């Protein structure tokens, strides 16, 4: 680990004393006049050292592959607008859920129950509207409360009982899937035709490009929660918790509370993503959202969030979602079976994490 074992002052082997030469040299007795080396990299260097830039270029390359492999489609706005619109719609749930997942992973945990929560959220929304005649906003509120209770349960079990999040949330994944199936005896649930639902499921058309409201929600929530993560004290505590929980604890940060809040946020957003999805499609199957947890985690990790906590951004997660979303588009356009998506997503996750570990070494 350390490369300074030859140092006689190293009584016990401790932490690596890495770039010691930078400031530790020189006369010790006199007052230090050596300048602190500031991060004086040029703007260019700073921009291109950012992980988000790399992910963005990765996305551009994949997107550009459409132009290379299918120029007939790419340079035809009538088809390309449809493809773009579909891409944006497909990533909306990944992004909305990915916001919470990014918080969770930065804070050192993760949640595998989000796909099931998504299904329960959408199905419960339809039930509240149809069977209980709630208004749209009341139904939404009720769904978010369900999400909150699920997230609180996950969080308390993980932090207070000490059950690893892998076990807790895989259990919750199954529990919620069971609930989703139980309440869809006919296979799926439909939302009634209510104008207010269009807040989530509607669309606008700009220059022939159809944009679904869900992508606006996804972008808006990303901006709001990105701001909170970067600028608030809670955001600082999320990073510190995942970076070194013991250090955060000793500094007086209630790390259990930070994690519980993150679990709640994630489940609430997953439930909200279900509401948005059923509002758009008009119906939802009990099997909706299967596999979302991996797609979302893939988007988060591709976007540069450290799988072991302490680092990451929502911008990266958003760009990672674009990468995840453009893969099936490429496959379909090139006549390859869309089932390959799962295969490729798996490969992308493993390669992304592997690269991440190698780069950090």
């Amino acid at each position, binding site marked *: 680990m350390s490369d300074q074992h030859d140092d006689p002052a190293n*009584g016990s082997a401790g932490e690596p004393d890495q770039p010691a030469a930078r400031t530790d040299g020189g006369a010790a007795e006199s*007052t230090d006049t050596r300048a602190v080396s500031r991060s004086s990299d040029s703007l260019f260097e700073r921009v291109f050292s950012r992980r988000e830039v790399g992910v963005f270029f990765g996305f551009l390359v994949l997107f550009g592959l459409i132009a290379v492999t299918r120029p007939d489609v790419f340079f035809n706005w009538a088809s390309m607008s449809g493809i773009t619109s579909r891409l944006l719609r497909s990533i909306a749930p990944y992004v909305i859920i990915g916001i919470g997942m990014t918080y969770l992973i930065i804070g050192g945990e993760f949640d595998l129950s989000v796909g099931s929560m998504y299904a329960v959220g959408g199905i419960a929304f339809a039930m509240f509207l149809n069977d209980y005649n709630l208004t749209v906003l009341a139904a939404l509120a009720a769904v978010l409360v369900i999400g909150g209770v699920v997230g609180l349960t996950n969080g308390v079990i993980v932090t207070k009982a000490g059950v690893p999040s892998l076990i807790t949330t895989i259990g919750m994944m199954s529990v919620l899937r069971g609930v989703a199936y139980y309440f869809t005896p006919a296979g799926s649930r439909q939302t009634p035709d209510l104008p207010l639902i269009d807040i989530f499921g509607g669309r606008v058309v700009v220059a022939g490009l159809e944009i679904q409201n869900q992508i606006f929600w996804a972008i808006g929530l990303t901006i709001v929660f990105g701001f909170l993560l970067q600028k608030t004290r809670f955001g600082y505590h999320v990073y510190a918790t995942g970076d070194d929980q013991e250090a955060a604890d000793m500094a007086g940060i209630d790390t259990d509370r930070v994690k519980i809040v993150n679990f709640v946020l994630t489940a609430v957003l997953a439930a909200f993503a279900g509401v948005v999805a059923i509002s758009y499609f008009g119906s939802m199957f009990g099997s909706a959202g299967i596999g979302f947890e991996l797609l979302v985690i893939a988007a988060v990790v591709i976007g540069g969030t450290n799988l072991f906590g302490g680092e990451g951004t929502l911008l990266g997660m958003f760009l990672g979602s674009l990468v995840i979303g453009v893969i099936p588009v490429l496959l379909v356009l090139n006549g390859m079976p869309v089932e390959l998506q799962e295969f490729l997503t798996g490969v992308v996750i493993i390669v992304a994490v592997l690269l991440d570990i190698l780069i950090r070494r």
Partner: protein
Amino acid sequence: MSQQDPILYTDGLTKRFGNIHAVEDVDFEVREGEVMALVGDNGAGKSTLIKMLCGVHEPTSGTIFVGGEEVSFDDYNDARAQGIETVYQELALAPNQTVAANVFLGHEPTRMGRLGRWLTLVDEERMVAEAETNLDRVKIPVDPEAKVKNTSGGQQQAVAIARALQSNPDILIMDEPTSALSIEGARNVLRVIDDLREQGLTIILISHNIRHVLGIADRVSVLAQGRLMGVREADAVTRNEVIALMMGAEDESEFEEFDLSRTVDEEGTTA
């Protein structure tokens, strides 16, 4: 002269873990404004004693007095409230966060009023500026905006000290501050300790590096097998005498039988 007043002392302080007597009937005393070194072999009870003083362990029996008042600590926040701060050996830093964020970890300065407990905006400019001020006090140059993992061991020690100074403690406990450092890094940290003493801080320095200890401390308390073997003025004691006490010898003659050179090598006191 306040130099002679004990700012902290313990009366019969004892800590047992089952049958293990980690600290046994220790009357430890620190005077205001001095650097008191606490030395001892591995397992001598240094860490256990310190952990009682900073609120991590509850004593089995015995009493701690701070400023003449009896105190008891449930956790390090209690000790902090009594003006005792600790810089742990493992430093407890968040490596991927900035130096400034680490100096203020858990106590980030905020802008605007509280919009809610969690919706407080961190005042980054003030945090960086104040971190710089704090780091100036430590006099080891560190870029407050650098990530901690990109700084040297000595700089990380400086960050941990700057954070401890944040709460304006009266007593600073430093657990092996030089053990993981290069020679230059260690020298800088020792200089910092000297500066802090000049600024009136009382310092308890835990170290097994006797050369460092005798160079900086005013007095030395020696622990062996959980007991306080003796307290010596640092400028009136030899290294061998301290080592003899560490080995549990009643007087130095008993110690002649030990292979001194080997011990000294292991302790890293020969350079």
